[in-house]
């Protein structure tokens, strides 16, 4: 039996969702037998491959690279899962939106100028550092998504419930407190 091709990606988020994924503990062993991780911050692969079965997306859409990557993921993936509050709602990543139309510039200034201890200055590197979007968005505002796995981070048992369902060919059916944000 072919193993399920699983990808995970890390957009505008803190990687806490991936940490929570690692909290799956012994289920990780079982998972390793049933899936092939084809793309992830946890494995060494540069290009998002074609023919991916399931992709967990952590993080909100905050820069142009994110948008490009999502477009490719959508083309190459059967089932996309918004993984964690940043992907589902924008969460903390999207809080800069509250600063108004100049939010990207203000956020960068705060981080790299006002709070810098040495060498203040907004980093510029054409082609390497992607420009920030003027508005941070949840993933489903950019491309359609099949399933949502909320939580900040989603607890390991919640991740397990979703993955188990997908492995068994069912639509995940989180309900009640399993859908709690935060």
């Amino acid at each position: 039996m072919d193993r399920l091709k699983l990808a995970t990606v890390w957009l505008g988020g803190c990687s806490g969702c991936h940490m929570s994924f690692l909290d799956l503990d012994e289920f990780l062993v079982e998972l390793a037998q049933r899936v092939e991780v084809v793309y992830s911050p946890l494995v060494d692969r540069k290009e998002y491959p074609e023919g991916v079965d399931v992709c967990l997306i952590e993080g909100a859409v905050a820069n142009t690279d994110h948008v490009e990557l999502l477009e490719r993921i959508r083309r190459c993936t059967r089932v996309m899962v918004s993984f964690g509050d940043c992907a589902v709602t924008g969460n903390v990543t999207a809080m800069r939106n509250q600063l108004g139309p100049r939010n990207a510039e203000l956020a960068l200034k705060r981080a790299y100028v006002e709070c810098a201890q040495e060498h203040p200055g907004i980093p510029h590197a054409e082609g390497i550092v992607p420009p920030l979007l003027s508005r941070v968005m949840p993933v489903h505002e950019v491309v359609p998504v099949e399933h949502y796995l909320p939580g900040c981070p989603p607890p390991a048992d919640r991740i397990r419930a979703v993955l188990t369902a997908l492995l068994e060919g069912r639509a995940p059916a989180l309900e009640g407190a399993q859908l709690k944000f935060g």
Partner: protein
Amino acid sequence: MDLNQLLAIKEKELASRRPYTLRCCTAAGCLSAGGDQVKKRLEQAVAELGLSDQVEVRGVGCLRLCCQGPLVHVDPVNELYQKVAPETARQLLERIRGGTVSLETADLHHPFFTKQLSIVLANSGVVDPERIESYIAADGYRALHDALLEMEPRDVIQAIATSGLRGRGGAGFPTGLKWSTVAKSPGTRKYVVCNADEGDPGAFMDRSVLESDPHSVLEGMAIAAYAVGADQGYIYVRAEYPLAIRRLRLAIEQARRLGILGSGIFGSPLNFNVELRIGAGAFVCGEETALMASIEGRRGTPRPRPPFPAESGLWGCPTLINNVETFANVPAIIRNGAEWFASIGTEKSKGTKVFALAGKVKNTGLIEVPMGTTLRTIVEEMGGGAPGGARIKAVQTGGPSGGCVPAELMDVEVDYESLTRLGSIMGSGGMIVMDETTDMVDVARFFMEFCKDESCGKCIPCRAGTVQMHGLLTRILEGKGTTRDLALLEELCDMVKHTSLCGLGQTAPNPVLSTLRFFRQEYERRLKPDRPVHPVALAAGR
């Protein structure tokens, strides 16, 4: 004040009439075109030419054809002069002296005039709204006298019920039923409220009635007060209508001085006073519970009904709320009889309706037609169609709560039920004609923007739902929307319509729903295709 005194005022007024009368329109439309200057010049000219015993220059209410103002009607030759300028006004006196004038006259045989039937507007353009004597000369306050002295309150209610009069504010609730509910509600203190917060953009019927014939509204309210047992009335009028406010103040003052308002009116036990309350720019205050909150000096937010105002209204007392046009119908019904009124109109919608005809139509202005007149008659015959021979696309009725009736359905008879069937409403009487150049998605967005700005913010579906619907409409209008956005929009329309607290929210989706119903292709051709979402989860191991 008794009947003899009333008749004496009438006789005196009629006796002072002169052979010629120049009726100058002094309603807001003509005033803005210089109508007051025209009247002033005519008065000067009459004095200079020594014609004072021959000619009366009378400021009157709306003469209907607003687009051609300033208007002057000359009696008894029965000619209506249009676009009269202060400089040329003097020529009208030549006409009286048998000469000819080069001024434009309106064609009084045009359907715009001949198809009208005036009940509410009977005095409009005839009496001087600033003089109570002028109203009395037209049999004003006779109905109040007769009701007070010759009818029991229940007879008055019966007459209103038999007449078939329905609320002219838009919803069409049977007026007689409302009156009898208030009459039956227990309570020593009751109120009568006139809703003159005409808020629909594109509607100016109530303004015209108040500016042209304020006493008819006062008389209707006093009759209502007698019928339901109230002793205090309020007129809630928009601050945007300064002229109407001034004339209402004057009318109340004059009526009070003659004892027609106050204690023991016409020697009957009825005490009735009317106070004016000036709105301050909130569309939602047209909703009756919000209006009452505003009269009480609070934020104009609506509350759930029941209890209805008829049971618990102003300060918890039974309160009768009717709109301007509804009250203005009452004296005529009492004077001419319920059967007379019931013989006009259709089976379920009796009497006439005043419409403010505006937009892309040749003749804009005020019309009053029997219920059941077709939209086509109104727009094409009376309105003269679109200017420049353009093709009419739709007629919008009911303002932000209403919908657009497409041109091919203009044979619909105008009454409460027929318009509702077409997804629009009668509304208070605004009628905006749209031609081919009008973009229906833009119209829907325009009304949604209005509702969003006017939402009071109390209930969530209206406060947040209108914001989201407006956002979706803007996206679609800009060509950025997808089929999923349209689906979201339709779903929100359904939800806001059924879950909002008051009429504003419940009807806010109507312009969208109606343009979607008749002009869906205008939405669809702007949409971008969606990428499909994977319908079901994938099978294990592929």
